[in-house]
């Protein structure tokens, strides 16, 4: 199994170069905010291990909100973010990027501070500016770009073929259909029209590291249990005090701001979403959000790695990155459906999960006990999030027209096809997928 990884390259934009950078990034697009996969600056389609990537100009639009807490907000210079979701290790991918798209990337990064288009070693620079994400969700760990494409082609071929088989042979007996389709696929593979690559071996280093991670966190928690038990009442008292007094955002996002994002949404079944905001002031909130994100990272790494994040089945990727000396958080995701249905889904199914993390952010609707309230205030929540949202300057998705559920279904179709001796109910479920 090839595990997925990410890169998050950020760099300050050199003064006076923001306009030029925006124009350059826009030149990559085929629709507002949507990259042309074959654009010449960064021909995304050439990268067979890239699920998605985007350039975002990270701006602190809600910087002044911190004043409501009696704290003077710090400066946040406009920053270029270049993020991506890939198969395999990020260092290898960055090297591939530097080789294949070096010229284009140099033109882009030349708008950043300290990057000299002629002199700078691109790969070393990208590695240096690659930040670690504190939590990273992958819809299906181990499912590669190649696998998604192969299984998509398989699903498509089988849907056509199944009708043929039932029509020509006059039987829709599940076992018969399964066998016939199996023969069909073998033939197609032999003819080179379909391909089902076997899973690649799991990198041993990653495997050991993952097991160590699986064990380490519970061990640490166990060791800390006495402290957690003693500390919990104090934590909860302090939490409630802070929750009661925290100011809420009551502003709507401006019409122009919403327009800038809406303009680039809903061209496809999948959309992108970036949020950038400040963490509530004080060490209490900082430690809380860091601990919780570590727990989230643990949960998504070891539990939610097979098509769902609690009740949500529409997220392809999501990451949380702390920035500005842990004073700010950046969240970026790829999801199915429109932004409103995405937010409704979250509010109605996992408000508690949103609250755990986002209630540590400035302006979030009032939460109680870290999991109650918050996103339950539907309109307040939507406004606050939308206000802190940032458009993508250019977004590439390697799987247009494919929802996360589609990918899971295509995977199940393949799994069912490969069953040597399926039971009747397995066969029935499998046929339903077609």
């Amino acid at each position, binding site marked *: 199994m090839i595990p997925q990884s990410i890169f998050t390259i950020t760099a300050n934009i050199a003064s006076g170069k923001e306009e030029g950078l925006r124009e350059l990034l826009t030149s990559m*697009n*085929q*629709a*507002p905010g949507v990259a042309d996969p074959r654009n010449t600056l960064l021909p995304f389609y050439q990268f067979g291990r890239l699920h998605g990537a985007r350039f975002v100009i990270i701006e602190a639009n809600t910087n002044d909100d911190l004043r409501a807490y009696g704290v003077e907000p710090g400066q946040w210079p406009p920053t270029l973010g270049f993020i991506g979701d890939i198969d395999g290790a990020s260092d290898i991918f960055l090297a591939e990027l530097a080789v294949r798209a070096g010229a284009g990337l140099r033109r882009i990064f030349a708008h950043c501070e300290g990057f000299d288009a002629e002199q700078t070693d691109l790969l070393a620079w990208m590695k240096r500016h690659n930040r670690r994400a504190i939590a990273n969700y992958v819809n299906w760990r181990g499912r590669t770009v190649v696998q998604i494409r192969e299984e998509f082609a398989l699903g498509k071929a089988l*849907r056509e073929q*199944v*009708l043929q088989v*039932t029509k020509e042979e006059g039987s*829709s007996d*599940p076992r018969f*259909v399964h066998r016939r389709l199996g023969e069909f696929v073998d033939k197609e593979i032999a003819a080179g029209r379909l391909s089902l690559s076997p899973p690649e071996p799991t990198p041993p280093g990653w495997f050991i590291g993952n097991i160590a991670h699986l064990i380490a966190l519970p061990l640490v928690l166990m060791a800390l249990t006495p402290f957690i038990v003693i500390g919990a009442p104090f934590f909860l008292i302090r939490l409630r005090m802070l929750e009661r007094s925290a100011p809420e955002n009551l502003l*709507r996002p401006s*019409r122009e701001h*919403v*327009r800038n994002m*809406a*303009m680039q*949404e*809903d*061209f*496809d*079944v999948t959309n992108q979403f970036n949020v950038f905001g400040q963490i509530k002031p004080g060490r209490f909130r900082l430690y809380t959000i860091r601990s919780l994100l570590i727990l989230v990272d643990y949960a998504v790494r070891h539990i*939610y790695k097979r098509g*769902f*994040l*609690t*009740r*949500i*089945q529409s997220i392809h990727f999501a990451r949380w990155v702390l920035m500005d000396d842990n004073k700010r958080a950046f969240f970026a995701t790829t999801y*199915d*459906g*429109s932004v*409103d*249905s995405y937010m*409704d*889904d979250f509010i*109605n199914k996992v408000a*508690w999960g949103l609250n755990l993390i986002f209630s540590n952010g400035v302006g979030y609707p009032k939460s109680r006990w870290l999991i109650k309230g918050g996103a*339950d*205030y*539907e*309109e307040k929540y939507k406004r606050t999030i939308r206000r802190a949202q940032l458009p993508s300057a250019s977004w590439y998705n390697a799987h*247009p*027209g*494919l*929802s996360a*559920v*589609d990918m*899971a*279904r295509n995977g*199940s179709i393949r799994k069912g096809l490969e069953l040597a001796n399926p039971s009747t109910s397995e066969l*029935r*479920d499998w*046929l*339903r*997928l*077609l």
Partner: protein
Amino acid sequence: MTNAYDIDFNDLQGLLRFAHGQLSEACFLLLKVIDPKAARDWLRTAPVTTAATANPLPERALQVAFTAPGLRALGMPAAVINGFSEEFITGMVADDNQSRCSEDVGNRSRRLGDVGNNKPACWKWGGAEANIPHLVIMLYACLDGLDAWQEQIQGPGFDNAFQLTATLKSALPGPQEPFGFVDGISQPEIDWQRSISTDRHERDRYSNKLAVGELLLGHPNEYGLYTTRPLLDPKSTPAAHQLPLAEDQPKLRDLGRNGTYLVVRQLEQDVPRFWKYVDGEANSDAEERERLAAAMVGRQRDGTPLVEPDSAPATGNADDGPRAKADQFTFDADPHGERCPIGAHIRRANPRTGDFPVGVSGMLTRLVRTLGFGRRHAHDDLIASARFHRILRRGRVYGPALTPEDAVKADATTDERGLHFVCLGASIVRQFEFVQNAWAMSTRFAGVSRQSDPLLGNREPLLNGEESNQFTIPQPDAPARCLKDMPQFVTVRGGAYFFMPGIKALQFIASDPSEGG
């Protein structure tokens, strides 16, 4: 016992409570304000029908609603209009497209499926800025009474105030919509008494009762919250004194209270095309034709649902009468769509889901499902809870009737006919737009693919070239039947978002803005 929550039906427009079913004739006048003062004068004395019960039933009715440009034209300050919801202010054709964009429509149009043949640039009304109406006056009358009613309304004063831009005249309604199916069966039952809890722990299963704030602004909605609407401080706006108090902020007056948003869309239905397509797929077998059409709708033509009825009505529904029987079902027992296809029209329009998927029965299963485990099949728990996405429909058909039997004939008449779709709700984005976008037009509703609503779909391909013009009919123990190359049956011809004020709010809108300071 009376309490503060009792609804003042005298302050509601009648359409919110009644469909005016006894009034068989109707027409909607789409108007521009040409003289704001004359318009306000006319509106102040307009004979608006309220929601108070009358015995005998009224013989004519009038309702009125305004678009955001209309409120502006009547002199309402921008600061007040900005208190309404964003989608109302920016309108059904919120324009954010850039010339670079290949498809010449904005985000809202993309979401609503108003692309291709549906695109606003082709609409008869509401598509371009210049032909967005300022207000709609909806007239209803008994048989042969509409002309006189219309004449009376469009009497002296009216022509000075308004310019008529279009008249949407309805046909005599039977229970059927133009394709021939009994329509309007599923309607939410408004919980006027606030008798049901909106608490998430008590709403696992589907209920047809709907919090009053899902329909009326200024009352608690299904979240137990008050939807955004303009609240005015009577200190700075003295004219606001005539408005009701804001229930959640008693120092302020509530312009929204007892009002609602009104969505009007003119949907042209190509009846011959629909029945000829189905007839072709059925190899001209009349019985098979009925069966396929019923699968697409999810009901037989007489309204009988394809799934087995439940033993008891859903919460909030009556338990007798043919209409109640036709509404007494959920899709809980048909998770794979083998009785009623997943993508069928009625399943998309109201999937009858509760807050939790089927099978939650206690603390433990609840926790398990909350954490995302225990899904029973590949497409379990993909559909949102219905109660946050209900709409109250008040549409009227237009054009000459055509039976399916005549529609399949080669010489079937092609007169324009269709539906003046009308729906009411306190949140356009969470109700109408959500239903239209995430359920009806979505090519991914509940895990389906290559299809949107079999009736409403625009059949436009996706970005990757994938088709959206199919319809899957799952079969038990056999591969699903798939209808392909479905043409477009319904085309959007116009539309706009309106605010339908309460009676006091209408008086405020009709008062002179310069007086109130």
